[in-house]
């Protein structure tokens, strides 16, 4: 601890925590930009990264919705699915708005056009759901969104004539480049750019007065309303905003960027709980924390598919080798569960949250305004520290 304190003092006196944080962030960005150009990396590694970027968008947007705005929704995967399914169906069948005389044929709409329509529809459904949820809080809100997500999943499963049921819906490919390596490189940068743009947009919202209102809503809706926060407006706003982000991410990811088809099983509550787990492990009150948690978790879940175990004490296997490969199967999820248990028990704000806050130089402030807020009621000494 003394070593850490000395390190902390040296950093504060030298480059400064925040600068060091920016420096490290810059290095991470450079790494991601350089990665696909590393000739030793196969397309598989890029695929894992693309998947990691997608889940980073999912987890960080859920962190905005639940961790910052306090709307504990289980409907996130459903909104993602709406974006993807609508984009796929529009590109395949077109659509007609009879009253307005609008007719879009499959030939006249591009993959990008379909993705935009998917994103807008996800936002519109988010608007309706946000409006319906106005008076619901906590467990009721969670139950409502579970019901909505299941309703959507079952609809996609049952209407297999249109959606392909569990065989899935194949979306129009967004990148039509014949050369596989080049295509994968483009897909990688596209998904990475989407993650950065989404994070910047969400960061902008969180660090604006709107972000403050959202946090106020999370702490106490009635108090926020009494202080003049238009709770109705911001509740709907955050639902529409996050729905559009995940709708866009889903429509792009399943347009053969990360996967060539979406299936209803992808919208199950189990998959949603994984998104929540990623955000919790990273830190659900931090966009970067949740995104990093999702990326690292996805990477680890892939890396742990096969674990090579070297035998200790000079022990050997029957064939003379001193190591064996463990195909982990479902066990890697059990190990992942252990990390989750550890996080919830000992680091409720996520494994990455303390690191991010340390670099931002806000660790003490955040500790006093978020993590320990309930303890202050019991401990006047801590309450005094709040004013520092």
């Amino acid at each position, binding site marked *: 601890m003394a070593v850490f304190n000395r390190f902390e003092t040296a950093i504060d006196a030298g480059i400064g925590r925040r600068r060091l944080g920016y420096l490290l962030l810059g290095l991470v960005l450079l790494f991601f930009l350089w990665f696909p150009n590393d000739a030793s990396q*196969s*397309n*598989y590694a890029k*695929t*894992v990264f693309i*998947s990691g970027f997608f889940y980073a968008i999912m987890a960080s947007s859920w962190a905005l919705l639940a961790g910052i705005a306090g709307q504990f929704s289980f409907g996130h995967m459903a909104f993602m699915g709406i974006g993807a399914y609508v984009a796929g169906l529009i*590109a*395949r069948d077109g659509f007609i708005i009879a009253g307005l005389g609008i007719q879009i044929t*499959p*030939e006249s709409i591009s993959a990008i056009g379909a993705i935009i329509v998917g994103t807008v529809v996800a936002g519109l459904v988010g608007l309706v759901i946000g409006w319906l949820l106005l008076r619901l809080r906590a467990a009721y809100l969670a139950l409502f969104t579970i019901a909505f997500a299941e309703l959507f999943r*079952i609809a996609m*499963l*049952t209407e*297999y*004539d249109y959606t392909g*049921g*569990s*065989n*899935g819906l*194949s*979306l*129009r*490919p967004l990148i*039509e480049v014949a050369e*596989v390596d080049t295509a994968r490189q483009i897909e990688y940068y596209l998904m990475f750019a989407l993650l950065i743009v989404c994070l910047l947009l969400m960061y902008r919202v969180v660090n604006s007065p709107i972000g403050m209102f959202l946090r106020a809503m999370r702490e106490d809706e009635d108090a926020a309303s009494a202080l003049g926060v238009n709770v109705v407006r911001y509740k709907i706003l955050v639902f529409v905003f996050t729905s559009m982000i995940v709708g866009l991410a889903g429509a792009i990811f399943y347009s053969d960027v*990360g*996967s*060539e*088809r*979406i*299936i*209803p*099983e*992808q919208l*199950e509550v*189990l*998959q949603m709980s994984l998104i929540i787990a990623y955000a919790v492990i990273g830190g659900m009150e931090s966009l970067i924390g949740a995104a990093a948690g999702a990326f690292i978790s996805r990477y680890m879940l*892939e890396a742990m*598919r*096969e674990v090579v175990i070297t035998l200790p004490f000079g022990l050997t296997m029957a064939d003379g080798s001193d190591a064996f490969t463990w*195909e982990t*199967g*479902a066990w*890697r*999820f059990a190990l992942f569960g252990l990390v989750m248990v550890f996080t919830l028990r000992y680091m409720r704000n996520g494994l990455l949250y303390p690191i991010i806050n340390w670099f931002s130089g806000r660790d003490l402030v955040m500790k006093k305004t978020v993590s320990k807020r309930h303890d202050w009621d019991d401990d006047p000494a801590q309450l005094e520290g709040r004013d520092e």
Partner: protein
Amino acid sequence: MKRRRMFMNCVALLAIFALLPIGMAQADGHCEFADYTITLGNLAPLSAPGAVAGGIAMDWAAKQAAADINADCGIQIDGVNHQVAVVTGDSEGSPERGQAVAERLILEDEVDAMLGVYHSAVGLATMGIMEANQIPTVFSEPWNDNVSANGIREFDGAPPRFEDGIDHIFRISPASSMVGSVVVDWLLSLGVDDVVLIVENTDYGQPAAADEKARFEAAGATVSQIDVELGTEDFVPILSRIQARAEAPDVIRIIVTGETSFNLTQQMSELGVAPSADTICVTNQFAFQSEQYWATVPDGNYCAFNRVGIIPSLFSDAAVALNAKYEMEFGDIVPSFAMATYDAVYIIADAMERAGSYTDAAAIVGAIEATDLDLSQGRYYFRFGGHNPDLPEGTPEFMWHQWPDPIVTVMQYFEPGQSGLDAAVIYPEVYQTHGTSYIVPGTSP
């Protein structure tokens, strides 16, 4: 005397222990193997939301086949023996994960061929990866018609996904269209015209029910469909509704899988709804796993069920041997997808031997097309492919690189606790084992 006998017994025992490793070494070392081990990638669902039980059986079957091939000196290429190893990748039943795992197997593990796949969605999503990387592939369980359809253009408005045709993908499981008609044809042949379908609300249940319903209605039968969620435990309200009808239906067809189907069948039998003198009970292929079936459906005698895969009366020596190994491992009869996965390894191994290469994808594909091999599920061959590219008028496109003879039958129990191996095959007529198309409850064939 007694002490001497004890001494002699000890000596004999020691001699056995001393000789055992030598014997094992000889058994292990009777083949000289090349340094390079041929690696086959197996895609199977080993975690949720995939069908984990199916994935475990497929993983076991592929590795058992590799072990059996290695015990017989592996794959011989140009007179040199190569050991074969199987690496199973967990597809999780998800196209997205399946794609990633397929790439890992091909690019990181550098497999020489691929096999397996349980879920059709995973098969459809991974085909492009196998094609792009030119990996000879034998799918052993996905049923979707498009899996083996040549030059399929699933997405309208986009160029064909495989403009040059599906060169590298083969399938030895049946296409959905090959399975759907058998139960309906059987029931229509019995003259039923009032059908109740109890259907699970899943990808398996809904399309299967729609297909059967259309076939029944086309033949003039009346069909009522009742949807249920997987995991439902109490079916009494549904069954009471059926009982309250003025006339009992001719047949209750259960299109529900797993434990839920067993619960439903038991409650139906217990209430006397079906099987009965008036109503035929038709459950699904999971009833063939008789250990599980009788443990949860003790009153389910005289229920019929469809079976995909070779029927017990036609089990070859290879099938009997495989079944014995499976029973030893899992305590039940080997399911068709495990047999198909086992056979897929042999088909690839045989093709590599005939192609004289484990790297020349075109030669291996050509050799698979020319397969003529008797394995656990029967004689394997591929009627249409590069060797015979012109599908005659009316032949469905899925027949490309498709094994044409997967056996689909209807079977029926007629004794409580009966093994699936002893159940009567009642349809099609050509496979009948007890000379009847239906065993009326309370009678013996």
